[in-house]
């Protein structure tokens, strides 16, 4: 209807819109935003600030006691349990970030290539991702049973995988890879679909095919998406808690007790909310620092080949 409107009439209409929106906007915005702002303040902003404040106090789970300055942080940097938990967290990340991204890429390439069965293939890879964590842990626990588990039937041993100091974390990592790789596949698949067809057609005219196409077109085009996938996966991996808590409760000998597990124990088992808040702050610092580092690296790389 708009294209047929004479210019003068249209200007008047636009003025009317601008006027009426300016008049009613404030009140409507207040009405529409009040629910969100209330919930946001109560359940995000206030807790965020409170985490920082608590970390400067000596507090129990329900009671805030004396202000102690940076004492909790001083304790933290000399706490071997904290560093061990951070080490375990990074070990888990090492075991998951690259494999999840590489396997996700392989799956995305397969789904992208075999268009006739892509619904089924994508479904098989993605299905575990929509299931609750405890479905994964229950099945993993059953498959990993020392004498009746199917894994030991296949490999022909009696290993108690989840109680083994060397095997516990890798096995948790494997369960996690099965459970979450679908998401990485999905992201990378979206990246693949965004690559313009003409690039492939032009390269094919030049005689490129097979792996050359991947190396010269797919990979350079996909690299930013792979970078994002790696970072997102790193952050998700650092936040590991449920898998180890349910499957091993941090054992054997605390070899799978990760940072969030240590924070949970400090707060809810030992009722030391002040110290737990300091752990939370340190954890946030690590996550934010890595995100910033990633952004910085990207800028450097982008500056090198514009």
């Amino acid at each position, binding site marked *: 209807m708009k294209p047929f409107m004479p210019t003068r009439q249209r200007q008047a209409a636009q003025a009317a819109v601008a006027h009426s929106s300016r008049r009613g906007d404030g009140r409507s915005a207040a009405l529409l935003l009040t629910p969100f702002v209330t*919930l946001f303040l109560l359940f995000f902003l206030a807790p965020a600030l409170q985490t920082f404040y608590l970390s400067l106090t000596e507090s129990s*789970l329900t009671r805030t006691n004396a202000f102690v300055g940076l004492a909790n942080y001083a304790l933290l940097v000399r706490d071997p349990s904290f560093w061990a938990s951070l080490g375990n967290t990074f070990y888990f990340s090492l075991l998951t970030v690259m494999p999840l991204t590489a396997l996700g890429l392989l*799956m995305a390439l397969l789904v992208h290539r075999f268009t006739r069965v892509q619904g089924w293939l994508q*479904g098989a890879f993605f299905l575990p991702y929509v299931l*609750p964590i405890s479905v994964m842990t*229950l099945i993993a626990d059953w498959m990993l049973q020392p004498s*009746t588990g199917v894994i030991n039937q296949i490999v022909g041993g009696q290993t108690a995988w989840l109680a083994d100091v060397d095997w516990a974390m890798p096995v948790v990592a494997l369960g996690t890879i099965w459970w979450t790789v679908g998401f990485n596949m999905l992201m990378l698949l979206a990246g693949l679909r965004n690559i313009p067809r003409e690039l492939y057609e032009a390269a094919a005219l030049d005689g490129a095919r*097979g792996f050359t196409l991947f190396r010269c077109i797919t990979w350079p085009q996909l690299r930013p998406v792979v970078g994002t996938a790696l970072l997102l996966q790193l952050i998700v991996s650092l936040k590991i808690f449920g898998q180890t808590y349910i499957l091993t409760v941090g054992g054997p000998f605390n070899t799978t007790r990760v940072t969030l597990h240590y924070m949970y124990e400090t707060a809810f088992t030992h009722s030391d909310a002040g110290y737990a808040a300091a752990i939370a702050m340190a954890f*946030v610092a690590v996550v934010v620092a890595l995100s910033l580092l990633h952004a910085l690296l990207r800028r450097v790389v982008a500056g090198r080949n514009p």
Partner: protein
Amino acid sequence: MKQPSQLAWTVVGVVCSVLLAGLWLFPLLWALSTSLRPEHETVSAVFHWLPRVWTLDAFRTTLGAGNLTRWLFNSALVASLVTMITMAVSLGAAYAFSQLRFRGRALLFGAAMLAFLLPFEALLVPLFRTMNVLGLINSYAGLVLPQVVSPVVIYVFKQFFDAIPGDFREAAVMDGAGPLRVLWSVYLPISGNIVWAMAIVTFIGAWNNFLWPFIIVTSNEMMTIPLGLTQTYDAFGVRYAQLMAAALLGALPVGLAYALFQRRVTQGFLAASGLKG
């Protein structure tokens, strides 16, 4: 004609696909095979891939004993409430951020987007204390409320609204519609797809949430499925046919939702990851 190298790649691809798809489906199929046996077969010294005697006993016992049906009900209730409230709150906020001009808009939106950066896990202790003060520990309200603050959903809706041509709004305002009316009868009807996608993703996320119920729930009757399934040793003992039946029953609703709405689900997850609208 196909080049030999191309054919070789195709063969490698087919082998990889079959292998990986089989590997990825195997745990679920194995759980199913376990759940369809009588309990004594799961501790039998002789290994069998398939049940010797097929039976639904494990499912019957699981549904009859313990709180499994209660956990399913709790999950359905909590996930539905979280989804409905998140959609209502986020649509309103996103529309205000996208289309209305008011003081403090940029500041407020920036603050909301801060929540992207801060992991929810860092808020657990103060959130628990807040719930304690409000007397909401171990309650449905306590389970639902912290889950409805979702900056990602607001961001996705705002992006979508930003892309709608201003003509739609102009036409409605010329007809004398106020801002709320415009949201309701102009913006919502054309946002059906994205609202659907985000609603399904929010529902699956809330259904699967483990961490928050783990913190806030203190009694067996208030547990949701992800949490309850970790308590099954107490409910059913170490009986793997029943445990696998319970796991499959807990997986069924979300698995079914995915099977029915595969495209919406993938679209929603992609939008939520901030990569694609």
